[in-house]
């Protein structure tokens, strides 16, 4: 290459070819469709766009989507940590089986999870009847949305935290103990800070996934406008009503939010790596 090298010399030839392919592939698959949507959304006069985004039904859907995703991610951060802890620290019969089961929400079609959850939590389902007796209704309320997002988000937290917990060597706890620290102190001062960046990554991933989740939610949420309607569903409804501009506007909003999320993930990871000294040359 003239001018200067872009990449470090590699024993494999063909940088031009691979880089060209990467650019083309990313453009065709990611950039082009997104750009089309952004152009479409930005083609709407600003006032109209703002009105669409601030529509009462749209705002209600944001509140549900972001609120439920945040709550589900919080729940996952706590329980996902506990699950990861027991998988890393204890050996019990069926540990490998449980370890594999964590990934099921990744693999299962989301609609299947949604229908399964709806069946269980419906007022006639076997968990639903018991909850109804206690005066709690999960299916067809915002609670149902949270339950679906917890299911979908769990593997993100567990899989992020697991390797970090393995990194916390038993030595660290022994060291803290020999210096006089009690169990809770060891957890709060040693284990949690070491795992925190990974936990933050897991939280952000679960949160981002929760905002975009569609398949598993629509079956359990009941989809009542202003009450249990999530933003992705609203986009589909607008499409079905041939309101392409409205769909594009909401899509644009989601795109911006997703980008902000992913940026946050990257920043969190960088922060964690710097703090714990991974990748720092000695």
């Amino acid at each position, binding site marked *: 290459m003239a001018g200067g090298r872009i990449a470090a010399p590699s024993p494999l030839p063909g940088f031009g070819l691979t880089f060209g392919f990467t650019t083309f592939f990313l453009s065709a698959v990611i950039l082009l469709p997104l750009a089309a949507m952004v152009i479409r959304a930005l083609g709407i006069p600003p006032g109209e766009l703002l009105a669409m985004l601030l529509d009462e039904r749209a705002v209600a859907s944001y509140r549900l989507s972001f609120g439920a995703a945040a709550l589900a991610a919080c729940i996952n951060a706590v329980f996902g940590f506990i699950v990861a802890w027991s998988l890393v620290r204890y050996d019990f019969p069926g540990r490998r089986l449980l370890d594999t089961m964590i990934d099921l929400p990744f693999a299962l079609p989301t609609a299947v999870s949604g229908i399964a959850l709806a069946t269980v939590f419906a007022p006639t389902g076997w968990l639903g009847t018991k909850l109804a007796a206690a005066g709690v209704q999960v299916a067809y309320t915002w609670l149902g949305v949270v339950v679906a997002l917890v299911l979908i988000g769990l593997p993100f937290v567990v899989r992020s935290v697991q390797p970090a917990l393995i990194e916390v060597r038993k*030595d660290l706890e*022994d060291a803290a103990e*020999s*210096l*006089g620290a009690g169990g809770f102190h060891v957890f709060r001062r040693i284990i949690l*800070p070491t795992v925190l960046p990974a936990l933050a990554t897991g939280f952000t991933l679960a949160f981002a996934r929760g905002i975009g989740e569609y398949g598993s939610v629509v079956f359990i949420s009941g989809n009542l406008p202003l009450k249990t309607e999530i933003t992705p569903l609203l986009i589909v409804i607008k499409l079905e009503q041939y309101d392409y501009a409205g769909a594009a506007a909401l899509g644009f909003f989601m795109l911006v939010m997703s980008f902000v999320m992913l940026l946050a993930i990257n920043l969190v990871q960088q922060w964690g790596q710097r703090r714990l*000294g991974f990748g*720092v040359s000695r």
Partner: protein
Amino acid sequence: MSITLDQVTKRYQLLPVVNDVSLEIGEGEFLVLLGPSGSGKSTLLRAIAGLVEIDHGRVSLHGRDVTGVSARDRGVGFVFQHYALFRHMSVADNVEFALRVRRMKRADRLARRQELLKLVALEGMDERLPAQLSGGQQQRVAVARALAHRPEVLLLDEPFGALDAKIREELRRTIRRIQRELGITTILVTHDQDEAFAMADRIGVMHQGRLLEVGAPDDLYASPRTRFVATFLGAANLLLGYRRGSRVDFERPGAEAVTPREIVAVIRPEEIELTIGAPPAGLTPVGEGIVQELQFAGATERLRVRMATEGPVSATPDREGADPGGWLLDASRSYPDQRANPLAVGQKVTVSARRIHSLPTPITSFTVIAREQAAADALRDTPLLATLATRMQTRITTRTTRTASAPPGMPVLAVGPGAAATALWNLAHGASQVLVLPPGTGLPSRIVVLPGAEAGVGSLGVAASLLRHIPAESVLLAIHEASTPERERASRLRLLLDARSRALTEHGLDLRTELRFGDADAELERELSVHPDSMLVIGLDALEAAEAARVKSLLEGPKQRPVLIVRAAGPG
């Protein structure tokens, strides 16, 4: 005493990894626990720190029994092999950790931190993160952190293991200097003998969970008591020697009136003198050989000499197993010697020794005695015997013909009809001990020692030798008549405790002790039936009819188990 360990035992899945370790460490002493990996030294160190719970025994720090006390309340300083620094905290926060836990005031913490960082020569590094430090610096931080709360005991678990040679050397000096300055009692665990020699006031050598020997570095090097210590601490040639009268030589026993007593001789490579022609006066002749290998190593020259096949016998059988042309003896010479008397590969040399140390081990070699070769081979391949021979690095020979006296090594027989008579004959004709085995027996999980009144010392010595090589539990059992009067009972107990303390001081073996009153044979049978895979070590005071009947019932009875019989007084 600063640290006192009393019969400390730790088992993992029933196997003892630390086996009956008793040890006293004085105020301000620097003790190095040395052993190969898996010898239990790290586990023992963690047990002292309270990071590992022990199954049996007691740990005391400065007279305070801390056996049941958690690590956080023992107040010891611990340094780990991989530093175990808190990576999310600065050097300052790491060092102050123990002080914060103790809610020390900010100003005091700061002063103490400055003092500690100065001690480990890391002033001004306060705000660095561990990731920004080199390995050596990280370990210095770990040492400062471990000393922050002014512990009375400092424990270091292979602290230099992850560092390269030059930094290791420097850190060794730093730690020794700090230890002297503070006068803090310190235990360091390592598998590196150079490190042990360089740092220790005393060295404790561990092997298979047992603390084999404890002593000053030079004493352990010059006069080891066990084969393991002899070969683990520096290089050593182990030879079978023969005690004839007051002197030791290496001439194989021929048709002599009195069978010479076999010993295991340790000759360090640097104590070997190589000459051409006749051996120099005043040195013990060893034999003749041919220079096989010459290695120039700067200040010293390392040589290997192939010993003539009819010459002295190596006590380590694997040395010659691979080479039918004779075994190889290690020698080394200083540079001036080498210059004055140059040798070449292939040259014929006379080997003599400046200094010979004979091991006080009662087991020098085994001789399997049987009528037919097939039976002898079967007995030879018995797992218990084969394992013992391998671990003790002892040779096994077989003998199928009748001879005038017992063999120089320990006779080994099969249980069954006639065993008692053969065993007693060997004991009467020169053997100090006889091992009687059911062919095919594996390693025992428990060794019961039944010392006779006079044979106590001998049987304890043999038991000690066995127990160094078998990770089994051991119990010293004394059985007296149920009719023994109250007054006598106390004195019997005292005798037993004396025997136990002798076992500890003379053989470094700590035995659990039990005194029972009742019918001797019934009590023994009961003890052995509770633990079916027991081995019995029994001391015989005399070879009279009563003893003969007892031996017969043990060796030819319906229940078969390994039995080692020890005679009261050795021959000669």
